[in-house]
């Protein structure tokens, strides 16, 4: 038995959180707590880098698999990664330290508790991405609600209670049906082990209902139109670090779930429901882009743009084409980086001016040029300019879509134009134009930590925009295998 590297990835943040829990909570600038949290998450990041390096890219089977008896004769604790999940783990461990660096600007009270919540959150999120048992997956998936509820509720904005409740109840409501489905799968197939289920396959007559039950959970979490309304509320009220976690990682759980479970376990049902997903995705892309155009609050605008981007992701997944699925994974990764960066950008100006309204800014380009440049980069990445990370995913998704369904692809392409419209218009109104108000002159440019975070995000955004090859190498075999398996089960039907 090798070293349990995945379990240590899951456990390390919890150990860090426990350590913090037993340190004394000081008010104000609690540097020790921050360093402990930072240290833990950076170590976690390094471990996951090591994981990526030692990952064998030539096989689609699960690697680093650990299995332990957990509930006797029923559930085994089983974790492992393949090409699809490993990148999400990397994304998680990469974003979390940045969140922790960013907190000193946005979180004023109870810093220690906030860090504990973030660390626990990280461990649950890693757990979601490497769980290879449905019950273990559900456990991590749901457990994440608790820290996120607290992050929004305790450190959020004025309407935080409403948003926290909405977030919690929406997602819980979506998930309970998934629990019914998971237990049903256990009784139908006799196991909840994902690898075994891949081999066994699930009886065709149950697939549609089970697919719908999983869909209800993932659709809320993605979020897909029309159950997306919790997301703008949650984003607007959450503190910056919370928004970043939410946008960058939490939303990806559902996309990952679609690929791993909806496609993998229910190939026949996925085929049946593709029109449904297409319709909802296209509505999400077009409709929420229009809503984003009309927003006055920057965070809300980015939140709606997230819904639109996730619409592309679901569209790409259900094209069931190599390009489409690879594009979706890449799109999720790029959205993870870019939306995180955009929320941080909003956080930067919010910390200085305490307003997120677009109209209270304008003409800040001369006052804070460094910020404006980085903001520009991320805006361009968000609208999918070639040469940025955002382009790669969107392009592949549309390519996959054109192969599968011309009409849908054409409509979705309009979404790209709308995306450019709302992002550029946002940028123009905030950064260019006349100075709307003299207070803006007092703004100072990025401080060291902000600069560091945004640069950390900018580098991969540009690098993978020009050279996404390493990512493709990692996911390719797994995606090909997934599609082969899918086609095989369709053919055998």
């Amino acid at each position, binding site marked *: 038995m090798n070293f349990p590297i995945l379990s240590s990835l899951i456990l390390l943040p919890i150990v860090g959180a426990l350590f913090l829990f037993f340190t004394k909570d000081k008010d104000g600038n609690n540097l020790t707590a921050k360093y402990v949290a930072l240290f833990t998450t950076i170590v976690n990041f390094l471990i996951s880098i090591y994981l990526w390096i030692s990952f064998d890219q030539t096989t689609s089977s699960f690697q680093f698999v650990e299995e332990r*008896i*957990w509930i006797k004769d029923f559930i085994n604790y089983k974790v492992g990664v393949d090409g699809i999940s490993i990148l999400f783990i990397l994304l998680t461990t990469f974003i979390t330290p940045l969140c922790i660096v960013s907190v000193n600007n946005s979180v004023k009270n109870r810093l220690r508790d906030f860090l504990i919540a973030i660390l626990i959150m990280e461990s649950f999120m890693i757990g979601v991405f490497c769980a290879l048992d449905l019950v273990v997956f559900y456990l991590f998936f749901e*457990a994440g609600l608790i820290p996120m509820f607290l992050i929004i*509720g305790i450190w959020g904005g004025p309407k935080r209670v409403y948003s926290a409740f909405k977030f919690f109840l929406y997602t*819980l409501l979506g998930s309970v049906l998934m629990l*019914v489905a998971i*237990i049903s799968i*256990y*009784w139908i197939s006799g196991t909840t082990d994902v690898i075994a289920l891949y081999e066994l396959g699930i009886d065709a007559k149950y697939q549609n209902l089970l697919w719908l039950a999983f869909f209800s959970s993932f659709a809320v979490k993605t979020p897909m139109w029309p159950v997306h309304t919790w997301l703008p509320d949650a984003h607007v009220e959450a503190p910056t670090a919370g928004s970043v976690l939410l946008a960058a990682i939490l939303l990806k759980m559902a996309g990952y779930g679609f690929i791993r479970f909806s496609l993998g376990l229910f190939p026949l049902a996925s085929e049946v429901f593709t029109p449904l997903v297409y319709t909802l995705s296209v509505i999400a892309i077009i409709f929420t882009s229009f809503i984003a155009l009309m927003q006055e609050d920057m965070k809300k605008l980015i939140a709606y743009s997230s819904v639109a981007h996730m619409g592309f992701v679901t569209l790409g997944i259900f094209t069931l084409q190599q390009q489409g699925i690879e594009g979706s994974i890449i799109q999720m990764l790029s959205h993870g980086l870019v939306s995180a960066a955009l929320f941080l950008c909003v956080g930067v100006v919010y910390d200085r001016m305490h307003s997120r309204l677009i109209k209270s800014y304008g003409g800040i380009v001369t006052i804070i040029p460094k910020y404006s440049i980085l903001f520009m980069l991320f805006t361009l990445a968000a609208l999918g300019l070639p040469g940025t990370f955002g382009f790669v995913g969107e392009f592949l998704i549309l390519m996959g879509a054109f192969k599968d369904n011309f009409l849908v692809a054409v409509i979705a392409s309009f979404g790209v134009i709308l995306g450019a419209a709302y992002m550029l218009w946002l940028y123009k109104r905030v950064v260019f134009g006349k100075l709307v108000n003299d207070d803006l002159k007092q703004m100072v440019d990025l401080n060291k930590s902000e600069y560091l975070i945004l640069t950390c995000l900018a580098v991969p955004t540009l690098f993978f925009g020009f050279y996404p090859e390493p990512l493709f190498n990692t996911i390719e075999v797994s995606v090909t295998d997934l599609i082969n398996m899918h086609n095989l089960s369709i053919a055998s039907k």
Partner: protein
Amino acid sequence: MDNLNLVLPEIFVSLSVMFLLILGVFKKESSQLTFNLSLITFLIAIIFVINETFSVNRITLFNDSVVIDHMASLMKIITLIGGFLVLGISSNYLKTFKIFKIEYPILILSSVLGMMIMISSNDLMVFYMGLELQSLALYVLATFNRDQLKSSEAGLKYFVLSALSSGLLLYGCSLIYGFSGSTNFDVITNQLTSNEYALTFGIVFILVGLAFKISAVPFHMWAPDVYEGSPTTVTLFFTMVPKIAALTVFIRFLYVPFLNLIDQWQMIIVFLSIASMIFGAIAAIGQTNIKRLVAYSSIGHIGYTLAGLATGSNDGIQSSITYICIYVVMNLALFSCLLMLKRNDQYYEDIDDLSGLSKNHPMLSLSLLIILFSLAGIPPLAGFFAKFYVFKAVIEQSMYFLAIVGLLSTVIAAFYYLRIIKIIYFDKEKEKYDSDHGIWLKFSITFSTILILLYFIFPSQLIEVVSRIVII
């Protein structure tokens, strides 16, 4: 001659009740002594149960009227531990209200004795005797704070309604006796011919009586008032211990004599279960008093327990018992937290009194957070597993409607638990509460919270114990 060792726990408890009563009468100022001796009685009884009966598979005594099996032993141990902890926690509360009297531990002991008899009963007469013994003690306990109007009201209400339900129950018993010719569960099983409508009537009457005892909807009316009016420690007792005994009787009654009539009673249990889950969740939303809220939430939890019973399978029974075990721990933890809300010799029991608790009492708030999320059934806490096992058993029998309704009602229930968490964590703080709590409270909070929090690491242990219970 039957082996009397098997009923040693009951014999010992009844002897000590008598002894303590005499001691209390003849020795002045003996309340502390009685109290301590009662605690020791509980401990010794637990040891007796473990030593004498825990390994017994199934033995019947006294002309088959008493049964000792795995379920009886396990439930007796939980009952005794529950009684022990409630009694331990009570002392400070009682002293504050100046009702620290000898009667309290004696009444608790005798009601526990009644429950133990109920748990072991294999005969309608024995069962009824145990039931009345525990009920009589509980009436007095409800009114124990007799200078308070609410407490007396609670006791009276409980007495009147409970007497009514006992009447229904007895009527059912006599119908069953009339048509089967015996009160013994095993004999009834053999005599049973399912086309007797009167038998069905009998079952329904008994089910109504039992549903009243566990406060399942629509026989729950008494619970909120009684829970609110009784002294808090007695409320704790009410929400935990009698339910264990009543549940055991429920299981034994449905699954021993009347298993063949499952078509007749399954619908009733499903209805009770669904009604309790939904009503408990919705009615709790509007409450302002924590004890009333707990009353409604306990109605909801009983609904989940009954869902397991409705399945008609061993898995279902085991899941119900697992549920009630975990529920008892969560309730104990919740009430221990509630008893910590004391300032200047006054206890606070409104939800608003929890406002901003997290600022002044971080540890207490953290425990409450864990307990409430667990009650709401959010993983990875123990409450999730309790629900998980129940729904696993329910779905095994393809009762999807029950499972989906149950899980949707957990979402509704989550709302009011979240509301309390919101008040604790998101709202403005109030004055500090006292922090000089007795060792009992601290112990029970720490112990139960850790159990709830870390249950997911070793989930198999409880299942293993429970899975030895095979009724069918």
